C-alpha cells in the first residue's frame, strides 16, 4: 500500500515533482530539462523506473549523475554515464527517434499545447524578449511524448500565444500560417507530441487523436475545475476529469529531500 503523505508534509513543488515522475515509464529514454524535471526523472529512476535512460541535451547519454546537475552542461552530468560527448549526438539521437519522453517548460500555452518561450507581445515589437527556444521545439518535434511543467496563471493559459516556439497538436502551415494537425506537417517524422501539462493547479492532457485540444485530467488537492477554468483564457474541456492528482508518498519525499536534492537547489523543503 502506498504511504501517502498528509497535506502538511509536502509542498506544491513536491506535488509537481511526483506528478512529473509518474509520467515516466520504465525502460524509456528520457530527455532531461534543467530544474524540477531533472529531480523528477531521477525520482522515477529511484522508484518505479530503475531502467530509464537519461539524456542531457549538452551531450550525455544514459547519465547516472552522483550529484544533482544544475544544468545539462554541468560537469556533474558526465560521471557514471554511458557516453559523454556533445550536442550532435544528443540531437541526432533525438531526431533518429530514440527519445520516448521529454520534459519542457514555457511562459505561455494555448488550447492545442503550442508553447511560447520567445517573447511577450508582438515579435517585431515585443514587450519582453524571453530566453528563446533552446531545445524546446526540437525535443517537442522529435520525442514521442512531451510533458510541460508550468505556473498556472490566466496570462499564461492563453487563447493565442504571442509566438509559437514549440509545436503543439495544431500548428501553423507556412507560408500561409493556417492551422493544421501536426501529423500533416511532420509526415514520417511524426511520433507524437505534447502528452501532458502539469501546472500549479492541475494536470491536463490532449485529445490528440481528435482535434488535439487540451482537457483537464486531474485537479491538485483543494483546487476546483471552476477555479482552473477561471485561470484559462480559453474554454477548458472538463468533461473527462478523473478526480485529484495523486499526492506524494512518504517514500517519494524521502528520495527528493534526503537523496536527490538535499540542498534544496530546485525543491524547497516544507517548513514545519
Amino acid at each position, binding site marked *: 500500500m502506498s504511504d501517502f503523505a498528509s497535506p502538511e508534509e509536502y509542498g506544491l513543488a513536491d506535488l509537481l515533482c511526483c506528478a512529473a515522475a509518474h509520467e515516466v515509464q520504465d525502460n524509456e529514454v528520457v530527455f532531461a530539462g534543467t530544474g524540477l524535471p531533472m529531480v523528477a526523472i531521477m525520482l522515477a529512476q529511484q522508484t518505479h523506473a530503475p531502467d530509464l535512460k537519461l539524456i542531457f541535451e549538452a551531450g550525455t547519454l544514459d547519465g547516472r549523475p552522483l550529484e544533482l546537475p544544475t544544468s545539462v552542461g554541468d560537469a556533474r552530468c558526465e560521471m557514471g554515464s554511458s557516453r559523454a560527448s556533445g550536442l550532435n549526438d544528443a540531437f541526432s539521437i533525438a531526431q533518429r527517434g530514440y527519445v520516448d519522453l521529454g520534459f519542457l517548460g514555457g511562459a505561455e500555452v494555448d488550447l492545442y499545447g503550442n508553447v511560447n518561450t520567445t517573447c511577450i507581445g508582438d515579435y517585431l515589437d515585443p514587450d519582453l524578449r524571453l530566453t528563446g527556444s533552446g531545445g524546446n521545439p526540437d525535443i517537442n518535434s522529435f520525442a514521442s511524448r512531451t510533458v510541460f511543467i508550468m505556473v498556472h496563471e490566466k496570462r499564461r493559459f492563453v487563447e493565442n500565444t504571442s509566438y509559437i516556439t514549440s509545436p503543439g497538436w495544431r500548428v501553423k502551415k507556412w507560408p500561409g500560417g493556417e492551422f493544421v494537425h501536426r501529423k500533416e506537417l511532420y509526415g514520417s*517524422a511524426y511520433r507524437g507530441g505534447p502528452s501532458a501539462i502539469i501546472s500549479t493547479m492541475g494536470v491536463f492532457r490532449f485529445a490528440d487523436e481528435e482535434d488535439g485540444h487540451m482537457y483537464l485530467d486531474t485537479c491538485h488537492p483543494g483546487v476546483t475545475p471552476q477555479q482552473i477554468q477561471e485561470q484559462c483564457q480559453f474554454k477548458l474541456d472538463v468533461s473527462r476529469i478523473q478526480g485529484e492528482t495523486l499526492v506524494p508518498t512518504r517514500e517519494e519525499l524521502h528520495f527528493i529531500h534526503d537523496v536527490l536534492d538535499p540542498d534544496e537547489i530546485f525543491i524547497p523543503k516544507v517548513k514545519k
Partner: protein
Amino acid sequence: MSQDKHITIQQAAEIIKDGSSLTFSGFTIWRRPFAIVYELIRQYRKNLHLIEVNGGPQTEFLVGAGCVDIWESCWVGHELYGKYGANLSRKVADKEIIVEDYSHAEMLFRFVAGASGAPYAVTQTSLGTDIHNPEYDMLGKAGLRDGKRIAKEKYVFTEDPFFDGGQVVHVPAAKVDVALLCVQQVGEEGTVRVDGQFYSDPEVARAADITIVMAEEIVPEEYLRRNADQNTIASFEVDHIVQCPYGAHPTGMFGHYDVDGPFLKDFYSGTRTQEGYDAFAKEWIHGLDHHSYLEKLGWPRILKMRANSALNFCPREKKGGN
C-alpha cells in the same frame, strides 16, 4: 615543427575586427572564453555578428557593452543564476540589435553543415512554429542576405525527395570568421583535448575560418599524441593558442572549477539597466587585465569553486551534513 601559434589574450582579441562574425566553445554557463571576451570589451570592439549554437553570459556581457549588432542563436540566459538575458531583452526592446531565431537543433545542424563544407543541412525539427514564420526573417528584413557570408534565405522548405517522408527544412551552413574556444588542454601545435562533454566545440572550430584556442594549460604535443584517440580537435584546425588559467570564469571548466553562481547572479540582477551594466563593467572589466581580475576575485573565492580531481566537479557542502 609548424609555425609558432602562441599569442597573448590581447593579440587574440585584436584578431577579431569590428564587424567580424564570432562563435564560441561551451554550453550556456560552461567553458566560455571569458578572458578574451573581457578583452574585446576593453578594446571597444563594435558591430560584431554572433552566431551561436546557444548563448549565455558571454552573449550578455558583449551585448550589454554594445559590441554586438546581430545575434543569431536560440537561447540566452544564465541557467538557474538568471532566467533570461536582460541585456539582450533591453537592446531588442530599444531596437539596437537584430535577433535571428533558429531552434537549438537547427543551430547545431547549421554548424555541422559549416564544419563539413556542405551548403546547408536538412532536418524536420520545429515544423509549424513561428521560428519558421516568413515574416520573422530579420536579416532578410534588414536587407543583409547577400548570399556571401549571410545566406540568401533563412529557410527553404521542400518535400523529402527520396523517401516521401513529408516536409523537410533546409537550414544554411554557419559561416563564421572566428571561433573562440576555451578548453582544458591544447598542445603547442594546436591539438585540443577537451575533458567532459565537448558540446559543439568540434563543429564550431571546424566551421570557423580562424580558430583561437585558449586553454587552462598548453602542454607538449607529444603528451597529447601518445593517446590521440582522446583528442577532440586536430592540430591544423587551430590557428592560435593562448594559455590562460581560469580564463572561463565566471563560467565553469570541467575538472578545474565550477560556475561562479553568485557572480552570475550579481551580473543578472545588476545589469537590467544600461547604467547597471556600465557600473558592472567599470568594476569588473575596464582597467583590469586577467591577473588583476583574478586578484580582485581573490583566493578564497577561487578555491571555493575548485573541482575535486576525482569527481571533476566541486562537491556541494551538505547542509547540516556530517
